[in-house]
């Protein structure tokens, strides 16, 4: 008996529910000779802005118990070079490419979305609203329902691509933000981005990261990520992409059962670049053993009592 692993996320068709997480898999190219990209549900590339961003001063990463902090600062060469130098090579693979977009103002988001909507080989946009809103004093768009709404509404106007809103966990009510972006036109939501954290070196007596604050990811955050996916899946009717600390098929199945229609794997690929593919295999094995025919049958299973 074969199991149907395919899922559809707001118009984005994937052969299985496992994606890479933005910023942790480069542009795919870095791993293409050791990971069969064609077997991924989708490949999500790094945060991309209108103009090139230089990123934060080093050190940019630090290890923490069962997790890591990063403060890359969304370094990227800008949308023009991504379109010209990175996307063409990915067209050789049979994998939907999702571009994660970032901006310091609403119009920067709009501009990069417009450029990508015109480009070949982009299957969907993931709008990373965890960026500081420069006009509003640096508070991140994603922590305010109105600003999150505004970004998604304006981006929605300029693209027909499936639109995924990527939510930040650093909020009192992630469900409220989720409802807001869905109302603004998002076809799906993905979460969680990293939890704000920091670390101090007691020898130098200074913060470890060059940027002082960084984003926590990896197994340590999994319980928080799962809870937020549970809350959001109960609050909106669009598909949810779950991520945060997923290392193996068991973790991925927890997210699916909490209500996610797909999952993304980030930090775990640093330990094992083939983790996303092992997770695909593991999900398939579980479904077969338990007699499910489609992966969609387990989505939200833990919600029904």
């Amino acid at each position: 008996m074969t199991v149907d692993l395919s899922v559809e996320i707001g118009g984005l068709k994937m052969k299985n529910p496992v994606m890479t997480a933005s910023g942790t898999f480069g542009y795919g190219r870095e791993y293409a000779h050791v990971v069969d990209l064609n077997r991924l549900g989708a490949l999500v590339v790094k945060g991309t802005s209108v103009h090139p961003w230089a990123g934060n001063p080093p050190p940019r990463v630090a290890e923490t118990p069962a997790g890591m902090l990063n403060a890359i600062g969304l370094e990227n060469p800008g949308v023009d070079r991504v379109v010209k130098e990175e996307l063409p090579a990915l067209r050789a693979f049979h994998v939907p490419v999702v571009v994660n977009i970032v901006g310091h103002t609403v119009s920067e988001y709009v501009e990069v979305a417009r450029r990508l909507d015109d480009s070949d080989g982009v299957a969907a946009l993931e709008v990373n609203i965890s960026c500081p809103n420069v006009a509003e004093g640096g508070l991140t768009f994603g922590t305010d329902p109105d600003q999150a709404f505004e970004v998604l509404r304006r981006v929605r106007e300029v693209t027909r691509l499936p639109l995924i809103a990527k939510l930040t966990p650093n909020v009192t009510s992630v469900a409220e933000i989720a409802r807001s972006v869905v109302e603004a036109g998002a076809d799906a939501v993905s979460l969680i981005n990293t939890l704000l954290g920091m670390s101090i070196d007691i020898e130098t007596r200074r913060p470890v990261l060059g940027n002082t604050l960084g984003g926590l990811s990896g197994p340590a955050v999994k319980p928080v990520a799962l809870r937020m996916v549970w809350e959001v899946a109960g609050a909106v009717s669009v598909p949810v992409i779950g991520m945060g600390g997923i290392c193996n098929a068991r973790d991925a199945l927890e997210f699916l059962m909490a209500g996610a229609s797909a999952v993304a794997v980030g930090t775990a690929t640093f330990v094992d670049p083939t983790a996303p593919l092992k997770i695909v295999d593991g999900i398939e094995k579980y479904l077969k053993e338990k007699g499910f025919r489609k992966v969609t049958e387990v989505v939200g299973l833990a919600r029904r009592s």
Partner: protein
Amino acid sequence: MSWPEPEPSWNRFEARVLKVDHPREDHCLVVLEAPLIARRGKPGQFVHVRVGGEGFPVLRRPLSVAAFHPDRGEIELFFRIVGRGTKWLAQRKANDLLDLLGPLGRGFPTGPGGPWLLVGGGIGSAPLLSLAQAAQRRRIPVVVLLGAKQQAELVLASRFGELDARVHVATDDGSMGVKGPVTSLLADQLKQNEPPAVVYACGPKPMLKKVKEMTRGQAFPCYLSLEERMACGVGACLGCSCAAETTGTARATTCTEGGTGCENLVQENKVTDLLPGPVGYVRVCVDGPVFEAGEVSLD
């Protein structure tokens, strides 16, 4: 002087531990069976080693290959035990398997001319040993300057000697060789009649900074091997950035104009090096860990 071929073909290996030796309590030498890395790796490249079990700790540890033995299919790692990961590694036993990615990074560029001057501070001598190996094979004369806090930390000195290198030693406490920093040995060497064809250095940042200053404007190139905290180790996460000496824009200009080290960065199409903006960053894992001294800012 030419950079080693870029190595797009790193892979993941299960390498068998052949020997674990503790020349000092806090130093460890691990010999691994890793035939492909032993044959294809270049001096200055590193491996990214998984430590612990079941996904914890979440980050691999970067370690230079201290010696390549292509004939026996073996490589050697030499490291100081500083934290959780190196402690775990030091507890491995013969026949354990180590999960590693490699060979990674851009090694030391080498040319036919000699002599080579190697400057190592502390555990920074590890990657230099593989250079001394290469020099011996190619019959290039090598002078090695080693610095350490005390004699006991100079455990690799005899290994350099076995490779026919001329070894000079400095210790902070004078317990072996000259008393003082290794850069004082470098000053002496640079006063000699015959200048080196090239200087290679690895060690703590302040030492590298000093070496960079001392070799600035000299006729011979100077290459530094850097360390930075890493996540992926393969160029995908931009976690291991080091500031480029000049701003991104300026470097891009230098490159089109044909500057020395930068040329190679362009050839290898490393987009992220060339960002316009207030600061340009290079990735230590794939753009390095070896850089021309002029390329990187060590402040």
